[in-house]
């Protein structure tokens, strides 16, 4: 029980930030609560460095919650938008254009500050697979940003 309390104290805020970066505000409290219920129930399985494990649980809990809401209130799900990069509209558009797997590994590295080894734990894949996914996702994002930058001047010219 003491270990759970230590983990809760140390990582509750971090897990909440993780969920806030991926889900609308109304989902956050439920998902974070569920993550720590799982943590308490499986306290013997929690590794010595618990954060990637907690992120894995949060990712799966969030997916379950989304599926549940899609079943019970599909109209609500259709209107809610997930958080996107702020203060950079070109980046937000390019990022939204990527697949979910690409977005997730980029979020883990850029927003959560994880190493590729830790990201591999969260994504439940090998370190090599995480590295390949990361470099491909980054390349795809770069290409989309370059495409957007090359299209913009033509568009501005057409407006004049």
């Amino acid at each position: 029980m003491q270990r759970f309390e230590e983990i809760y104290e140390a990582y509750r805020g971090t897990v909440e930030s993780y969920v806030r970066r991926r889900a609308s505000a109304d989902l956050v409290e439920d998902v974070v609560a569920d993550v720590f219920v799982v943590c308490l129930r499986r306290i013997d399985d929690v590794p010595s460095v618990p954060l990637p494990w907690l992120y894995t649980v949060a990712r799966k809990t969030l997916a379950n919650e989304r599926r549940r809401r899609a079943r019970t209130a599909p109209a609500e799900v259709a209107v809610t938008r997930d958080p996107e990069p702020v203060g950079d509209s070109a980046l937000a558009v390019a990022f939204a254009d990527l697949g979910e797997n690409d977005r997730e590994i980029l979020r883990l590295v850029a927003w959560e500050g994880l190493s590729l080894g830790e990201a591999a734990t969260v994504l439940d894949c090998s370190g090599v697979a995480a590295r390949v996914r990361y470099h491909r996702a980054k390349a795809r994002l770069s290409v989309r940003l370059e495409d957007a930058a090359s299209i913009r001047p033509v568009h501005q010219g057409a407006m004049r």
Partner: protein
Amino acid sequence: MRNDVISRLAAANPVPTQVQLCIPRYSPDRRRVAIAVAFAVAVAVPAVAFAGALGNLRGFISADELCPAGRVAT
């Protein structure tokens, strides 16, 4: 160059926190480089060693054969 994208994405974090960003950089795996070099050596050494014998086998070799000067292309 592409790591700028990650820095840009980190700056656009919707819930900013004081995390230390550790941007992974691409570096060829030493083990893969060593395997590639070993493979190249394993192919190249026998190829060089037996090149003459192989040419002879197929009748390409011209060593020790006289060649009329008129047949040499200028």
